[in-house]
């Protein structure tokens, strides 16, 4: 390698290293803002200011879904298996909303510590399998999140 080429190679690698370090520092400084949602543990640690709007993410706790008959208002518990937050939501839930599956909700904490959501998104996990496999897994483990719909007091069965 000629000296000129070596100099250019060092220059290119230098640019790359400089930009990487700058990018890493910037992303590290904005870590809190880059994060799309807070999990219940972060909420319990008080990382969210009272009254501040934020997104809450986690699993819908099995058996925690309730809905008043004749109303859309739903209550469920979002958990990360260390801490829990109760969520209330009064709009239509997405198709992939299931007990035991992931959700990301946007809203704020009210005074009683209930998270009042104005938007609930279903978070899909990275598992893909045919229905038969999901059913046989369910048989083997006794329970699975495969077919757990949120039926409790849905508007159709309610009023």
């Amino acid at each position, binding site marked *: 390698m000629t000296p000129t080429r070596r100099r250019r190679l060092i220059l290119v690698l230098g640019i790359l290293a400089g*930009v990487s370090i700058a990018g890493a520092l910037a992303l590290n400084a904005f870590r809190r803002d*880059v994060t*799309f949602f807070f999990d219940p543990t972060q909420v319990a640690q008080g990382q969210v200011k009272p009254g501040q709007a934020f997104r809450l993410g986690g699993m819908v706790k099995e058996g925690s879904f309730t809905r008043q008959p004749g109303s859309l208002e739903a209550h469920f518990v979002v958990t990360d298996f260390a801490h829990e937050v109760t969520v209330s939501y009064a709009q239509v839930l*997405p198709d*992939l909303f299931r007990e035991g599956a992931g959700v990301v909700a946007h809203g704020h904490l009210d005074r009683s510590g209930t998270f009042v959501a104005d938007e609930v998104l279903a978070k899909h996990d990275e598992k893909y399998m045919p229905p038969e496999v999901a059913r046989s897994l369910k048989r083997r483990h006794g329970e699975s999140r495969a077919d757990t719909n949120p039926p409790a007091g849905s508007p159709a069965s309610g009023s």
Partner: protein
Amino acid sequence: MTFTWFHRLGSPPYVYGLAQRLAPWCAGSALLLLLAGLWGGLVLAPPDYQQGDGFRIIYVHAPSAWLSLMVYTTMALAAAVGLIWRIKVAHAAAAACAPIGASFTAAALVTGALWGRPMWGTYWQWDPRLTSELILFFLYLGYMGLRASIEDTQRADRASAVLAVVGVVNVPVIHYSVTWWNSLHQAPSVMRLAKPTMATSMLVPLLIMLLAFTLFFVAMLLVRLQAEILRRERASTWIREALKR
């Protein structure tokens, strides 16, 4: 010398002839694999246990997203080789990559939005994965815009190559965005160290589609590279010889 093949790859007539010979083979095998992958993905693969038939968009979405990263990496490597060794063919290859990569990125963003509406409940969120992929799209557009705005080819090559190299830091950010930060987008099912979290009957068509998309990219690159070399070498005599054949 051990590096003769490398030096030959720096010669426009040699690369032009090579691209001319290889392109039809890549395009042909890409088409065959594409048909096989689509048949496997849309007909043979079973529906997903949660998403039903809606998951099948993955057979276009995931290969497009992978290619959007792979094409950018190829482009940045070619640009760096062009910068360091002053090889014109390398700059031509980088320039030929950009519109292909931008198209794959657009395809990934659009198919992702169409899937996100029914599954997540939203077309778009400013989530780390989605935002960094959008930045990648703008990097491609910026690269093409910078090239187009500089009249002199040599200066356009060098300026745009620096942009391509700088932008490559976004590639690992996109890939790891779902593990570094809480993200709405799911973690990788296939491109991970552990075993894929996808049933084999669904995974095989996806891998076939990935190979098909990659070969399609190589075929497109070879065709665009020929055009790029023709444009750059239009004054030289070997072009007249080559076009007579």
